[in-house]
């Protein structure tokens, strides 16, 4: 028995098996339970330590496995990260039935997640780029059903993500040279530039994020939401892997400034763009870009916060996106469009579902009492310590997103004068979103509830966690 087989092999097998159930609710339930089981096992089962089953029998889960000369290894330090990723995936899978996309999202999502985890565990490290590309290719049928002609958003997503690969591979090739001759500034410059370009494509940094709002218009918001949660999270973890591995990169003087610049660019532009948007899906897309911007800003505080600020953002952002995209999917399924004109006054027909949209939106801004508030506050305090200039630019993004939240709120409450309050949407849909809202509120008031999950996460990157 070895760890990669449990947390990569089994999910890949499950990804195939989960195509079998014909009922969407069964698929969603089995997918959710499986992900939950994988999360629990990652949390509780020790790796590389003998587990005594009886006097005569003991079991030890090995760290690594060799495939085609490459090594995939999952160490005990990776356990919290696995638990977090599979735990969050369970939330997405449970909600997939209510979003009407379980048949595609659960099997493909399980496969994508397994591949992403493989990308974080593979040695030599550079092969990760290829595994990520494979995962992106698998995401295409999730975003664009085979019976439908792929839209501009999907094609652009594929182009930009694929363009990231050669840059990262070239950078990796040069990095080996930098390691052997660290004084070669020319080589260092080329490696750093290529790496920055690769991650700019992978993380959809301005202006490479245009696929996000387009995709939010043309595909299922829940499917896009899943990708917008998973892809940046894994890409950032992948970037952390680079930083952890290469000391020269970690100690690169311009690194915090570069991360801060990229983060501010994303937060500022996406926030301002969101302020003028009239499509609920596109607004969510911009909010997801702001989320990535915040994560980059949190990474720029690496030397002060030792990754804690970065990991603190992960759960609220993932949960917020799940609730937001589920609510939008339900609205799109039932009303056909997410344009302001179409959803005007809908709060009286969908009080809980619209509340889901609003609560997730305000949480992304960091409204007090909501899950996004504590990590965003911690982030801003970190930025303020460096000076108020950076915090002011980040605040500009917040103002933009806040404006779009007020506009959305103003539109959804504009019901005709004599319309009555109803409760449209199925029980499952309303209950799932209701639970999500309660969770967002709970994490907003008691953020320390998730601290036990987060406390050991930085240990995954031994050189960065201090």
């Amino acid at each position, binding site marked *: 028995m070895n760890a990669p087989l449990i947390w990569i092999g089994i999910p890949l097998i499950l990804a195939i098996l989960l195509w079998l159930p014909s009922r969407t609710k069964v698929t969603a339930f089995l997918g959710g339970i499986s992900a939950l089981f994988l999360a629990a096992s990652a949390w509780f089962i020790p790796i590389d330590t003998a587990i005594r089953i009886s006097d005569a029998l003991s079991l030890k889960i090995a760290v690594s496995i060799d495939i085609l000369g490459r090594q995939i290894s999952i160490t005990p330090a990776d356990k919290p990260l696995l638990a977090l990723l599979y735990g969050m995936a369970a939330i997405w899978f449970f909600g997939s039935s209510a979003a009407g996309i379980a048949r595609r999202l659960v099997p493909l999502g399980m496969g994508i997640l397994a591949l992403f985890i493989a990308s974080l565990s593979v040695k030599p490290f550079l092969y990760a780029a290829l595994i990520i590309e494979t995962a992106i290719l698998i995401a295409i049928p999730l975003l664009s059903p085979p019976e439908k002609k792929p839209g501009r958003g999907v094609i652009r997503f594929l182009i930009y993500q694929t363009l990231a690969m050669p840059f990262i591979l070239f950078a990796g090739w040069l990095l080996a040279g930098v390691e052997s001759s660290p004084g070669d500034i020319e080589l260092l*410059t080329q490696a750093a530039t290529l790496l920055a370009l690769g991650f700019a494509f992978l993380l959809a940094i301005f202006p490479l994020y245009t696929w996000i709002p387009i995709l939010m218009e043309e595909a299922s918001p829940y499917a896009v939401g899943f990708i917008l949660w998973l892809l940046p999270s894994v890409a950032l973890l992948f970037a952390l892997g680079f930083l952890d591995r290469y000391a020269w990169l970690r100690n690169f003087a311009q690194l915090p400034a570069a991360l801060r610049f990229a983060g501010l660019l994303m937060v500022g532009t996406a926030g301002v763009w969101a302020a003028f948007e009239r499509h609920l899906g596109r607004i969510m897309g911009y909010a997801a870009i702001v989320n990535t911007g915040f994560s980059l800003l949190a990474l720029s505080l690496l030397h002060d916060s030792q990754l804690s600020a970065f990991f603190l953002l992960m759960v609220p952002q993932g949960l917020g996106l799940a609730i937001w995209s589920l609510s939008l999917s339900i609205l799109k399924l039932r009303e056909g469009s997410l344009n302001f004109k179409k959803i005007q006054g809908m709060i009286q027909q969908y009080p809980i579902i619209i509340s889901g949209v609003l609560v997730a939106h305000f949480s992304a801004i960091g409204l007090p009492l909501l899950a996004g508030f504590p990590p965003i506050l911690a982030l801003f305090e970190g930025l303020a310590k460096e000076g108020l200039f950076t915090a002011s630019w980040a605040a500009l993004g917040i103002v933009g997103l806040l404006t779009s939240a007020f506009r959305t709120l103003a539109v959804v409450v504009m019901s005709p*004068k004599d319309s009555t309050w109803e409760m449209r949407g199925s029980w499952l849909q309303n209950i799932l979103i209701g639970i999500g809202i309660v969770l967002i509120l709970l994490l907003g008031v008691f953020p320390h509830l998730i601290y036990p999950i987060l406390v050991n996460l930085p240990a995954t990157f031994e050189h960065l966690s201090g």
Partner: protein
Amino acid sequence: MSKVLSLDSTTESKADKISYSLIRYFTPMLILITISILTLTAIALLFIRIFLPDFRYSWLLATAGAFLAWISIFFWQLKMPFLLALPSWQPEYLFTDSPALLADQISWAYAFSVVTLGLGTLLTSTSHENRTTLAGTLILSIVGVLAVLAENPLTLVMAWTAIDLAELITLLQSVQEKRLRERVIIAFGARVIGSFFLIWAGLTSVAEGSALNFASAPQKAGIFMLIAAGLRLGILPMHMPFRAESLLRRGYGTMLRLTAAASSLILLARIPYSSLQSPFIPYLLGLVALTALYSAWMWFRTTKALDARPFWLLGMASLALAATLHANPIGSVAWGLALVLGGGVLFLSAIQNKMLNRLLMLSVFAMSTLPMTLTATGWENKSTQWWGFWLILLPAHALLLAGYFRQVRRINTDNLKNHNKFTVLIYPLGISFMLFTLLLLGIWGWQGAASIGAWQLSLISILLITLFVWAYPRIRSLIPLQAHWLKPDTKKSKNFIYVLSWNIYHFLRNLTFQLTDLLESDGGILWALLFIILFASLLAEGIR
């Protein structure tokens, strides 16, 4: 002998230590007791509403809970100040603050007022309120108490948001017209922006190298705290985004409005004057004084108190803010308490009775700034601000109280004699509780009690009140023909600022649309690649 003595003293000191640590441990629980009583009662009421809809004693249960909470607040006086630290946010090195509640002389007075208001609302609800809002009143009391007890800005913004959300949900349920709903959103927006200003004040403190707490806010933070309170109260800049007060009538509506005001007013008492050393302060004071005068004038001319409630809130809150700017935080609390309790007494009074009307006059006395009254400290001045501001503030106060006096003497068709025995008994009790608190706080319980104050200024104010009350029926221009200006403001104001903001918004919107079209069109990929090449060349240069 000496050995015995020393042994005794050791024993004593141990006992002292034990009792001290017991007190230290249990005193903060007093806050929890009050909050728990209110919370459990509210939960019980919600449970009853869902599972026992025929239960007949909901009102009794709510009132009993509020009364017990009211009594429990007196026990806080046994050992003040004390701090209740809530579970700290982790990791601690990322969060400079965690939620905490502080009971001191200032917060006690506000908490006592908020709970009294809740109790008064419930007791007077026998006459006018449907009983579905009982739990809502208690929940507002809880949030209000949490807000006024906030030990740091973090706790305060959380309580503020809870109140804002309660107000938003309540108003959206009670308002149907589109334009009015838009106003509700604008009001909500203004408050949320106010909350963000307080957070920004915290960030400026962090940038200066210290955490933001109310005891030692740096100079740069003070102005942001002031803007936060001003925005939430509608003073800076003066705005009343939602004037349709008639939609939120007595009872729950009054509770909501006054609790929201109290939760914002507490900040004024917490801003250290040392952090308000800005050259803008005299201008702000001028603006605040003019706001006070304008709203007092509008309040004075009104015919229906409930319709003009926003002007009362604005006028009294302006006086509180002016006191803060005069380095008089205790005076600010005094005006705040008068706003809550004085306003509560008046706005909850739905039924006329000679005796009751005479009793209500006591609240005019309590707010008169005379020595030994609640607002005695209102005119104290520890700053070096220009004396001329009194020329505006004194008439403003006089107009507010003259208007109040008129409202108390108004003739209402709804007489107590027309109600059942239960209402005849309970209703005056509700009003009396609030009046009792109003008078009690003038002589006991907090820092501003039993004060002489600036009696010379209070005499001028009394003279002015008398003059205005005398003049009102005699000068025709003071009597409004109709209170048409109090109807919901549904027309978009086409002033310069509005037009300018709208034009800027349109310009920015068109710009972003153009850029979006450019980047999302088929040529967008090429534009993006061009940008990336530029970016890469800059990056490479930067590294070199």
